[in-house]
């Protein structure tokens, strides 16, 4: 874990309202898919807290995918090459990559694509054949799909049918598992989607790892702000017990 002053080296705009910030400092940020960083611009006292983002890339250059949804993310999305970015990480526990013959199914919703693109690239580099299921509201909410296609077979669903199959991502996921349940699911996205994916996985008896999001202040287990209730009745902390959990630790088994 490091606390680095970095500079933005490049900004891409992979979809409306989204920015992919690349940054580099004096030191590398080595990380595994699913690990995250806390980042903050040099903008004075407000907004006061850094924001948590899964890494899309790590190493000498790191990157994060920002969707502008509030004041902090709007400021981050407006940053340009040369701006100073304070980066704190890598933090948390990432995906535990399964090395068996199970087929990796990566299920992303919205900006949940970030850690899964990282994972897809790693799997591809290791000679695996990941299948990437990517669900969104509309065609405008599918950042980085072109990058995914370079390393994985891509299946898209949109709620309005503007691209891919119309409906929710759980529909093609269910069909795939009906055909072949020798699979493992890695997922990241909105809570409702994670719950639905965990249900599908649970019914099919397929292992599933979920990456959660929670409001966070410190990012490293000290403030106790990012608690979620686990199925064992005890609080889990997204920043250091996670953000990636085995789905049954968070979601009750589907009946």
């Amino acid at each position, binding site marked *: *874990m*490091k*606390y680095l002053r970095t500079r933005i080296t490049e900004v891409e705009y992979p979809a409306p309202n989204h920015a992919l910030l690349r940054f580099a400092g004096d030191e590398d940020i080595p990380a595994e898919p699913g690990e995250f960083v806390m980042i*903050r611009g040099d903008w004075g*006292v*407000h*907004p*006061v*807290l*850094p924001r948590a983002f899964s890494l899309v890339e790590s190493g000498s250059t790191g990157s994060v995918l920002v969707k502008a949804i509030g004041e*902090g993310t709007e400021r981050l999305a407006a940053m340009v090459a040369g701006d100073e970015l*304070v980066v*704190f990480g890598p933090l948390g526990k990432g995906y535990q990559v399964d090395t068996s013959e199970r087929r990796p199914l990566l299920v992303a919703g919205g900006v949940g694509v970030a850690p899964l693109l990282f994972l897809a690239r790693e799997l591809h580099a290791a000679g695996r054949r990941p299948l990437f299921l990517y669900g969104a509201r509309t065609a405008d909410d599918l950042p980085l799909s072109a990058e995914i296609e370079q390393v994985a077979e891509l299946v898209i669903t949109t709620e309005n049918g503007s691209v891919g199959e119309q409906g929710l991502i759980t529909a093609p996921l269910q069909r795939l598992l009906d055909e072949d349940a020798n699979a493992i699911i890695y997922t990241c996205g909105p809570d409702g989607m994670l719950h639905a994916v965990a249900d599908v996985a649970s019914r099919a008896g397929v292992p599933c790892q979920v990456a959660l999001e*929670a*409001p*966070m*202040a*410190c990012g*490293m*287990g*000290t*403030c*106790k*702000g*990012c*608690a*979620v*209730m686990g199925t064992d009745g*005890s*609080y889990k902390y997204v920043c250091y017990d996670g953000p990636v959990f085995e789905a049954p630790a968070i979601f009750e088994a589907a009946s």
Partner: protein
Amino acid sequence: MSQRLQTVLGPLTLENPFINASGTFGYAVEYADFVDVGRLGGVSVKGISLDPRPGNAPPRTVETSAGMLNSIGLANIGIDAFITETMPRLRELGVTVIVNTFATSIEDFVELGRRFNDVEGVAALELNISCPNVHAGGMHFGVSGAAAGEVTAAVRAVTGLPLMVKLSPEAGDICEVARAVEAAGADMITMINTIRGMVIDVDRRRPMLGQKMGGMSGPALKPLAVRMVYEVYQQVSIPIIGMGGIGSLRDALEFFMAGSAAVQVGTANYAEPGISLRLAEELDAWLSERDMTTADLVGLAHDPA
């Protein structure tokens, strides 16, 4: 860092006047990889209770204009784990440890105080009689002079450790509470803890936090805190450790000039975990240019007698 930063707080002497505030820096050991925690003026560790506490229902934090709300609920590992697992590491790291204790009864505050008497490496005890996030107890000790005095006197009777009492801005008259804890034997006053606030999620039409209300901290709190330090300084003789929204040297200078002999840095630790050391170095340079010491600053904003 130079001698001019040395800070005498009654029976407690710190190498510099910047203390990391309870609840914003864990037990300090978590930061040892990238902050030289032994050089901090002190660390007030996350509030310790007799039994471990799981904390409140989430969500527990939300950001506000120039600040944040938290309703953590004093989640902590409990005194046994703290003494056996955390304290040895803190001693190794050379941290100036201020143990922040929390209880819902006077008996439990006394028990905590008694047990820390014999723990090597504890520099001071800080009584948290001002947490707004725990239903039973907590803040009620801090909002009346009588209750605050009673708990302070009871702990004073069992501990020889330097004793600081952390006051609540929710007291009807914080000066009355300050006078009461001084009379009851406190060596120092820490002020202020958070003040309760609320954020409403207009989409869900409900309060954002699981507990509805949370303690507000951060830069937005600073003028309130400076005013209270200024007022209390005129009414007590024991040293005041000021806090509330400090994020820059100028912020800290305001607190010293209002009457603080030392300061605590809280929410700003989230933005920059090493901020206290940076501020100490900046203060050192600032004082050096003016050939002053920290002690020279205390209360400068008050009218000459």
